[in-house]
């Protein structure tokens, strides 16, 4: 099963913008190692920033895939720029807000911002920006061949689309 780093799509504007959220929970096992208690101090569970990049990649990847109704195999090809200013702790909610900057038959570039909701204050705070490049791998420049079925957008993605009322996009 593919690891999903977004929980719910909350906003969708066709061909332009997609917003998704992820709730960070202390029940997530990876937080127990990131960072575990050790000689340098007590445990400090925080959402790994590399997985926040993946969360943005999944958000933006669904957006890019939706443009051609998930017929293209959309692969994250390059992290152009990523800036995350602060840590996210269990109990907080991350919001990934991705927009398409440019797209053609070979791929797309996206820009995204990351906000975090602290439920104690009820307010969102901007904590980062991530710029990504996606490739439509069947249109790769080197002419490499890939399997015919779309292994990128698995059942997990379809489930998230259906829960957001967007299941028809993947029909």
């Amino acid at each position, binding site marked *: 099963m593919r690891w999903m780093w977004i929980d719910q799509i909350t906003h969708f504007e066709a061909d332009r913008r997609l917003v998704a959220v992820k709730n960070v929970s202390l029940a997530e096992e990876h937080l127990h190692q990131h960072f575990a208690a050790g000689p340098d101090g007590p445990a400090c569970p925080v959402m790994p920033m590399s997985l926040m990049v993946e969360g943005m990649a999944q958000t933006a990847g669904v957006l890019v895939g939706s443009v051609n109704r998930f017929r293209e195999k959309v692969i994250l090809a*390059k992290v152009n720029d990523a800036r995350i200013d602060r840590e996210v702790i269990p109990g907080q909610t991350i919001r990934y807000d991705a927009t398409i*900057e440019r797209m053609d038959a070979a791929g797309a*570039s996206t820009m995204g911002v990351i906000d975090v909701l602290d439920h104690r204050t009820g307010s969102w705070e901007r904590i980062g920006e991530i710029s990504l*490049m996606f490739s439509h791998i069947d249109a790769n420049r*080197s*002419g490499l061949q890939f399997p015919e079925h779309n292994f990128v957008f698995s059942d997990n993605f379809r489930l998230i689309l259906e829960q957001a009322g967007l299941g028809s996009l993947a029909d």
Partner: protein
Amino acid sequence: MALTNDEIFQKVQGVLVDALGVDDGDVTPDAVLTTDLGAESIDFLDITFRLDKAFATPEKPFKIGQGELFPENLMANPDLVKDGKFTDAGMALLKEKMPHVNFASFDADRRVEAVSELFTVKSLCDFVARKLGH
């Protein structure tokens, strides 16, 4: 007002510094995008998108079509590529579609995988200048 060749070079230099993470000083006119500046296949798409943005103005959009700057979708055509090398027809098409590239040293080679080594910083500047109507 039309950009000078120096201004075009500076914008192209900025695009390559941002796209490839190289230093200004590395981006000389003769630098090859792949072997000298480390560009990989996805970087060509990134460079295309960034050039669009760098040279567009509110009055005049600047949009590079697919395959206009770098060759694409030629490899699977047996009339154009045979045994991993461009045929005479393939070479003729490359030269026609890419007047911004110097093919002088490539005629004897013709290997598909070597075509990306033809793209220098100067060829990008020449492409932009032509597209801007210089």
